[in-house]
């Protein structure tokens, strides 16, 4: 009986090794096949992955830091509540520790968030270089302030020092809001401007091609009317974009979430105009 079982086991072991040899043989042609498939898109898409990879890594870090912050925030709230109820030195010490921890994890989270904003802003097309550079500088300043705040928190050991750090963070808030919402406005505006530029370029190319290829004068006249309508829609979009850009670059010190939401609402009209133009284009190029 044992002999039979051992023979079966040996046979199955042999079978296990056999496909390994087969895979080793079949593994060689696959590397040859893959570059052939990916060779064409690689050169055009080569600069993009680095920023994308950077952004993916930042997002992963952000998720981890957000989870840490949530835990620290809960502990801080419990410790603070206990201190306010008990009013003992032991509970004060616990509350101080928890507060410091929550402040540090909040600072880390915000720092990563601003780095993500910065990378996205660098990636975004359709924003003039001076505005982009100026905003990147502002983000860098905010990141610097957050790092400074973190150092202050690490040094704060008693209740008075923690209160001082809390007050200094409150003074930082307008700068944080400005950096956040102006950057978000610029990113959304830049995306819309970039889409407008692309739509205009494709429309012009297709109009030129139509002039060269279409020989039927009736069809040509009809298609030209279509392109004229697209041109009118796009010029409206262009005007809307200019108005939004003026609003974003107003000489203001403070931007809030409401300002950003107003810009998003205005950009919806822009996107509506752009999608109408693309839809018209689809009709015009129908054979």
């Amino acid at each position, binding site marked *: *009986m044992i002999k039979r079982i051992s023979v079966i086991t040996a046979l*199955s072991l042999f079978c296990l090794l056999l*496909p390994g040899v087969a895979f080793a043989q079949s593994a060689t042609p696959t590397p040859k096949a893959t570059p052939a498939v990916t060779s064409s898109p690689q050169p055009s898409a080569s600069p993009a992955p680095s920023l994308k990879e950077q952004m993916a890594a930042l997002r992963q870090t952000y998720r981890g830091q957000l989870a840490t912050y949530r835990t620290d925030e809960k502990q801080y709230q419990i410790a603070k509540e206990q201190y306010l109820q008990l009013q003992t030195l032991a509970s004060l010490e616990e509350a101080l520790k928890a507060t410091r921890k929550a402040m540090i994890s909040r600072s880390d989270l915000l720092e990563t*968030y601003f780095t993500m904003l910065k990378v996205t802003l660098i990636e975004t097309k359709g924003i003039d270089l001076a505005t982009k550079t100026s905003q990147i500088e502002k983000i860098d300043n905010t990141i610097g302030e957050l790092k400074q705040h973190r150092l202050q928190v690490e040094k704060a050991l008693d209740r008075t020092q*923690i209160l001082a750090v809390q007050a200094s963070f409150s003074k930082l808030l307008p700068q944080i809001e400005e950096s956040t919402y102006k950057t978000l406005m610029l*990113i959304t505006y830049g995306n819309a401007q970039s889409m407008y530029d692309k739509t205009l370029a494709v429309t012009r190319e297709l109009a030129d091609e139509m002039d060269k290829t279409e020989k039927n004068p009736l069809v040509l006249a009809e298609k030209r009317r279509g392109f004229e309508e697209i041109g009118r829609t796009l010029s409206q979009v262009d005007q809307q974009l200019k108005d939004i850009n003026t609003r974003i670059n107003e000489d203001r010190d403070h931007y809030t979430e409401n300002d950003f939401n107003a810009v998003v609402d205005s950009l919806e009209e822009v996107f509506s105009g752009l999608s109408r133009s693309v839809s018209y*284009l*689809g009709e015009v*190029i129908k054979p």
Partner: protein
Amino acid sequence: MIEKQTTLEPVAEEVGVDQTVFASQEPIYQDVAMPELPGEKKMAEPKKTPPRFIVIVLCAVGAIMTLLVLLLLLVPRSPMNILKTQASPSPSPQAELTEQQQRVKELSDELKAADPKKLDLPFPPVLINIGLNDERNQ
């Protein structure tokens, strides 16, 4: 009490043996039976199957190996099938579109992706007033 005495006496008479004799015979029977058992065991040992746990372990190993072999034979085929299924339907819709239509389709897709409401960078949900002030008294 009287009834018990009447019942015990006939039993003793029927057996014809008193309890002291019976007790003395017990070790003799045991002595006789003891040497037979090892003999029977010695005869049965070579015919017996191996311990069950060894059989179970070997069977389990055999079954796992067989499963692994089956899995290894099946797994390399699946990505090939996936590649084939992915590759085969894609060319047909692309082939239907002209170059101009393809450009407009790409533009439409980019436009959908650039929707400002899809921007995934909301401000982190953090407490702004972290500190040890008693807000309940303020």
